[in-house]
């Protein structure tokens, strides 16, 4: 019984480190501490509608359908782009 409880607590702690802990990433060229497990979490934390931007993670485009399943890790380089006026 005691063993099981300790195991559960340990699991929760590990999960917290993965989902709630701050990570230092590079966002649009600037260092930034973020709390986000996935690319979708990151957009939500920035209050950005995922339909209005494209996210590039370590130079790879992340498709909108894959934002939720794409983890954000310490040291990641993230670019958020959109369409602006141009010729």
């Amino acid at each position: 019984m005691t063993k099981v409880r300790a195991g559960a607590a340990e699991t929760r702690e590990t999960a917290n480190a993965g989902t709630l802990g701050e990570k230092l990433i590079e966002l649009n060229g600037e260092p930034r501490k973020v709390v986000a497990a996935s690319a979708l979490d990151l957009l939500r934390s920035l209050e950005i509608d995922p339909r209005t931007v494209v996210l590039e993670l370590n130079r790879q485009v992340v498709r909108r359908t894959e934002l939720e399943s794409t983890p954000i890790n310490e040291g990641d380089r993230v670019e958020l782009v959109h369409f602006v006026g141009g010729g």
Partner: protein
Amino acid sequence: MATAVGTLIDSPLTIAGRVFRSRLMVGTGKYRNNETMVRAIEASGAEVVTVAVRRVDLNRREADGVLYHLDPELYFLLANTAGCYTAEEAIRYARLAREAGFNEFLKLEVIGDRETLLPDTAGLLQAARILVSEGFQVMAYTNDDLITALRLEDAGCAAVMPLASPIGSGLGLVNPYGIRTIKKRLSVPVIVDAGVGTASDACVTMEQGVDGILMNTALAEAADPVTMGAAMRLAVESGRQAFLAGRMPRREIAAPSSPTTGMLG
């Protein structure tokens, strides 16, 4: 468009099987405000509008993306790779644009020089080949050189876009011969991109027989962009009609328009 009885009915501009309602394409940069841009584009009658890919400004809360002002249902958004100086960089921007966008079309720019913004044709060809293989419909911004245009066509570009003169210069069509030659030799559509300054420039350019024109600064920097948009619509239609009509030959001597017979003795 009012068309007099008996005038030639033109076939619409078609690029990679996609039919467009106007031969005039316009950019969305450098307008003093978004309302003016929207009204100028409306007045121009353009369907294809170009946009650029840039970082989201994370310090600005309000929506500053161009899509907040232009309805993607009404306009065909053509993403560009403006500002890219290498093939690698242009390919990176192209892939981002495709995910952001609504179609497979891309205006490919690989710039070779910051002062003239003239294209790096070697980088352009390299990027074009890779992007074509990835399924992009590449519309390549190039110079007025026939050989580069031919190579771009061979690479599988959907359209070739030679310049009238440098981007944002407003110098008009500096090499009508070069543009005419490219048009004569290529099978894919030729859209003249950059350099048109005013309506007469657009008209003369269309008279060379090209399939369309893309412009931005001529509208954005006009004192009245909305009226210039309307003028450009007429100029492009006018130049196209004149080309189809076939101009009279040039002569170095006069030929009287009135009868030389029947004069009083």
